[in-house]
């Protein structure tokens, strides 16, 4: 246990949070709307609605006006956002809350207060370079178009972090056109002289982002698989529903098992992270790995399961595939994640 882990206040029911998320997202997300109007305006009020539901306060410290919940309160929300292909995201902002919650003064504390007041949205980028040697452009920053602040973290979570005020002078934010249109990404050009070095527990932000991606994948993978199974139950060829053919059923079964293994690991990693127990940082990375792998496998196969219709722009299969492929490389490629968690895993294995 580290000092910044709170004694969690009365635990909110994750299933109630899930229901609330499901209702909001069902009401507000039109997953095809972004195809024609790929920009933050396509989902106008969604982020504000999330803030209205108090999601930004969930894990903030009570002393600052937060609800003192653990990551287990956010997990079902992230999963539902993945399922709904939500264009609005809160994960980077919430990762910042986790990292900053122990700070009482300085720029970190000030940012935390602005988040709690609903005035700040944070984008996070991971980088291998030391902040002072950073390039002028940070590319493909998720949520960068709407962020007020940019938090730069070292790739593996440890080392010097930096904070940029994106509302200040010398910053140019450019929305990037990406294959995945279900969320928005930006190239951020900045004057590195404007950075504020920041002492934060970067590995906590790293694990938060790993798990947010993992849950986004689990939710999306489940939805994509559900839709493919439903389609195979109704589509008939040779006088039978194609879902009765073993060639398809067996692949679906393998995908389901891969998803359930990933889900179980993500649950375990979530509990470990919430309590900061065991090898929580490595477990979060491992959950990230299995979850992106399952999401990619399911969305790749889903198009094949659908046949020709799955290859069309009109059908939703590609929305999931594109989000899955973006998730796979967002905030670290699978090989980078493997290299990050390998030392701990190998060392513990040798201890028997």
């Amino acid at each position, binding site marked *: 246990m580290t000092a910044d882990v709170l004694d969690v206040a009365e635990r909110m029911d994750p299933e109630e949070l899930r229901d609330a998320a499901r209702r909001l997202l069902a009401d507000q997300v039109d997953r095809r709307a972004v195809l024609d109007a790929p920009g933050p305006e396509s989902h106008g009020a969604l982020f504000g609605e999330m803030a209205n539901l108090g999601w930004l306060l969930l894990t903030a410290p009570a002393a600052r006006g937060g609800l003192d919940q653990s990551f287990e309160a956010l997990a079902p929300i992230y999963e539902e956002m993945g399922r709904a292909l939500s264009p609005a995201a809160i994960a980077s902002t919430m990762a910042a809350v986790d990292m900053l919650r122990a700070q009482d003064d300085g720029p970190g504390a000030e940012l935390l207060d602005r988040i709690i007041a609903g005035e700040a949205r944070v984008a996070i980028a991971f980088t291998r370079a030391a902040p002072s040697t950073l390039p002028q452009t940070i590319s493909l920053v998720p949520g960068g178009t709407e962020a007020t602040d940019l938090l730069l973290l070292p790739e593996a979570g440890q080392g010097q972090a930096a904070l940029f005020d994106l509302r200040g002078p010398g910053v140019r934010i450019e929305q990037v056109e990406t294959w995945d249109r279900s969320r928005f990404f930006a190239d951020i050009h900045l004057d590195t002289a404007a950075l504020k070095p920041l002492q934060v527990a970067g590995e906590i932000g790293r694990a938060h982002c790993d798990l947010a991606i993992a849950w986004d994948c689990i939710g999306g993978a489940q939805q994509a698989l559900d839709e493919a199974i439903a389609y195979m139950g109704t589509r008939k060829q040779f006088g039978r529903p194609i879902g009765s053919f073993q060639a398809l*059923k*067996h692949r*679906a079964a393998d995908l*389901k*098992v891969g998803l359930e293994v990933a889900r179980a690991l993500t649950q375990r990693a979530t509990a470990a992270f919430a309590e900061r127990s065991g090898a929580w940082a490595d477990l979060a990375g*491992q959950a990230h790995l299995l979850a992106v792998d399952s999401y990619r496998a399911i969305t790749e196969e889903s198009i094949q399961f659908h046949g020709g219709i799955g290859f069309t722009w009109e059908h939703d299969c590609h929305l999931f595939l594109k989000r899955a492929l973006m998730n796979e490389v967002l905030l670290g490629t699978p090989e980078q994640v*493997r290299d990050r968690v390998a030392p701990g895993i190998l060392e513990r*294995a*040798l201890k*028997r």
Partner: protein
Amino acid sequence: MTDRVEALRSELRTWLAQNVPAGWRDRQQGDDIEGFLASQREWFARLVAAGYATPHWSPQWPGGGRSLAEQVAIFEEIARADAPRMSLFFVSLYHAAMTLQEWGSEAQKARHLPAITKGEIWCQGFSEPNAGSDLASLRTRAERKGDRYIVNGQKIWSTLGQFADWCLLLVRTDSSGPKQAGITFLLMDMRSKGVEARPIRQITGDEEFAELFLDDVEIPVENLVGPENEGWKVAQTTLSSERGLTLVELTERMARSLWSLVELATSVGEELGRIDDEARRRIVDIASRIEGLRAMIAILMARRIAGQEGVGDASMIKLAYARIARDFTSLGLRLRGPLAQRETRYVLGAGYETGNWMFDFMNSYQYNIAGGSNEIQRNIISERVLAMPREKSA
């Protein structure tokens, strides 16, 4: 209740530290079958005496009456201590004992259960050459003549059947109705006239299974379990008797044996940082899948303990385990390179993680084929979990 489990764990750790035969792997390396049988008997006797062999039996039996959570703890601790498996006695303790406790007559229980704790060995006579995945199509015939059944037919894949004293036997007593009806469950004394058990040599060279040839074997009617023609129902008890504990144990053993992969990949003496990138990444993948599987098993066992098991849960775990076992051993085999090809001595009864990579890789097929092949599990998962349309079957 958690306290009870934790107390049991700490008691077990102490006991295991004192009782796991030191250097058992070394002694069994390349040992002959007599040596294997002797060490199995010795280990089994120790477990029985300490009360750890029969936690799943009903409370009136010594060592019985333990909760499922306690049974899980026993298997986990045995695996973590790298103790020998109970291969030779597993069918006796689980399949035979659980079937008898649920369906057996008082006389059958009194005759067989104490004998099992004293080391009587049971095998299973279920599969036949033409009834594998489609078990209910079995054709071994039993005809009732007075107070005995006369049995003719052939059974296959009886685990260690060549050493068994008794056999749980499925026979056909009626062919007129649907195939599941007309099956009867009998207890067969392996010393009966007309029983011949021939070991089957596997691709590993090991002989862990037997074929049984039954030629006019006489079985007394008092050895009938459950009603005649209702043996299929009895067999379901047998087939579900181990309640997932085998996979609890095997998965713990696999997680523990990750070290052997790491040691292989680093080669002794080299620093972890010098391991080849590709090997290290593949080990991370295997380690992550094992950890996911452990988490999945923990969820399943918790549901089982709460009486809320989901349809098809067990099939998903079986399939996940089988695939990981194959990939795990396949990776070890590749890392070991040409050396693996000349290491032909192996440890009997250690599970698949003997450290002999060629043996372990070949043996991993067992988990992909036995106990419902991967294909059968995929049928179950797709039809019962995913509710995909059924195929017409004969």
